[in-house]
């Protein structure tokens, strides 16, 4: 109970901080709309309205992923600039419980990306947004946000130790669009890429959202997505003590 409360309060204040940043906010407004517009122009040759919904959902998840991958690194960098990283590390809880709400708050912003993208598709390009399983669709979104946040957590662990690791988040942003099957079906990719796709939660999150919207069975994909999220958290926690110890040894916590 105490742990859940700590996670909830941490998420609330971190989310409050991010949502108050006009600079970061502008990026979150523009990028998803840009992705959606590009996706629409690529796929509008198709006559099928379901193809356009397929593309629109892909663009929406691209925005969600970008919000997590790039901002997870920025979040740690922000803690360093503000001089709050040391203050957080010096608190008694396991640092994982302090860090996880920060990355979950980042991925929550991704929900906005999804809503904005779908709204643009509906009102500007007239895409039919009929969702076959609304409840499962909502569950798939929440599950994706949680697992994206977990992957952001894994990134953030390395950002604690390495100041320049924020670049890692940017590096992962574009390849995952491709290998996560956001716009191009995975079957079109070379066979050697597929195992990489399988270990990425965004692949399964994307698939679950599409299955729920287009009328398939999203539960297996959703469970895989959540399972991978759990694995990321486990890996992150296992690495965190070692990473923190290295940062304390090198005096890297106070560097900005």
């Amino acid at each position, binding site marked *: 109970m105490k742990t859940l409360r*700590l996670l909830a*309060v*941490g998420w609330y*204040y971190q989310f409050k*901080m991010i949502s108050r940043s006009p600079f970061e906010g502008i990026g979150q407004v523009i990028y998803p709309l840009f992705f959606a517009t590009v996706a629409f122009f690529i796929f509008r040759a198709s006559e099928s309205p379901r193809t356009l919904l397929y593309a629109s959902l892909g663009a929406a998840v691209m925005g969600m992923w970008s919000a997590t991958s790039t901002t997870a690194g920025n979040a740690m960098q922000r803690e360093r600039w503000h*001089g709050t990283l040391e203050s957080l590390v010096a608190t*008694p*809880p396991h640092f994982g419980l302090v860090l996880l709400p920060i990355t979950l708050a980042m991925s929550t912003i991704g929900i906005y990306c999804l809503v904005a993208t779908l709204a643009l598709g509906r009102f500007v390009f007239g895409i039919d947004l009929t969702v076959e399983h609304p409840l499962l669709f909502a569950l798939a979104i929440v599950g994706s946000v949680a697992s994206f946040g977990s992957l952001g957590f894994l990134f953030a662990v390395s950002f604690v130790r390495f100041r320049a690791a924020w670049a890692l988040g940017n590096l992962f942003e574009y390849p995952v669009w491709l290998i996560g099957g956001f716009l191009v079906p995975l079957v079109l990719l070379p066979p050697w890429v597929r195992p990489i796709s399988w270990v990425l939660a965004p692949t399964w999150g994307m698939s679950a959202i599409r299955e729920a919207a287009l009328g398939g069975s999203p539960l297996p994909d959703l469970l895989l997505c959540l399972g991978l999220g759990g694995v990321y958290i486990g890996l992150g926690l296992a690495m965190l003590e070692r990473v923190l110890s290295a940062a304390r040894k090198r005096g890297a*916590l106070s560097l900005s």
Partner: protein
Amino acid sequence: MPVVEAQDLHRTYRTSTGTLRRKWMDVEAVRGVTFGIERGELFGLLGPNGAGKTTTIKMLITLLLPTSGTARVLGYDVVDDPREVRKRIGYVFGGERGVYERLSGYDNLRYFAELYGVPPKEIRPRIESLLELVGLKGREQERTEGYSRGMKQRLHIARGLLHDPPVVFLDEPTIGLDPIGARELRATIASLADAGKTILLTTHYMFEADALCDRIAVITRGEIVAQGTPGDLKRTVGAGTVVEVEVFGMPEGIVERVRDLEGVTSVSIEEREQAQMLIVQTPTDVELTHTILGTLNGANVGRISRREPTLEDAYVALVSGE
């Protein structure tokens, strides 16, 4: 048993220069620091910038690992039991950084109250009483980005006390504050000591350490060069004399020339608006005024005075390594 004890603490940083041909070197920030702080004591760690004060305090609050040596807080080892140490200490860093500027003062405290495990029912009254203590009552709902440096500093103090820790570490808490703000903050620190907290205060202001501390350790170049009550430290130079010479346009190399004179204990220069003050300490029975004037090579000299040494002179003598 001391509440805080440091035993032969060393801390070395590895740093590099150059881009293509990197040269690595070790910088010894702390070299064998040993001290103990008793329950309820206000202990000052006094030294110039770069002396190793912050490095020492960061090892004690578990943010840095010592290269060698041991440190314990309330019996818990800072390396082996960092979480037990963190539960029992509060710390305050000087400067404006370290607060979430997009959150209000209240939200900053609320977030850290949760992190420090303050029971939910106690959070609101605790925050209210701390806002009262540090004089931020009425401004707590404003975002901290609009706070003055002094207000941020006071918010730091409130945050460090949220979980009512028995031991408090204050790292140059008055740095950069205006005189009134610094005086108010010193009064707050004194009230914490009156409330029975064990406090380690680092500062480079001699008068601050003199006014607040029960005992002081003077640290310079990573080593403790003197330790005792303010009275003990004064006595280390108590028998000497200080000659102050006001000079308009100090000749180059004067410190080295005066230091080489026989009988000189320490030399320092202070900037005083258009002039500089050459401050020379000598034993009581040594008269060097004319000799000192002779080394000035005809520079424009103003007021000359002789006086008894103060605690600041003791500090200058200690940190100049004489």
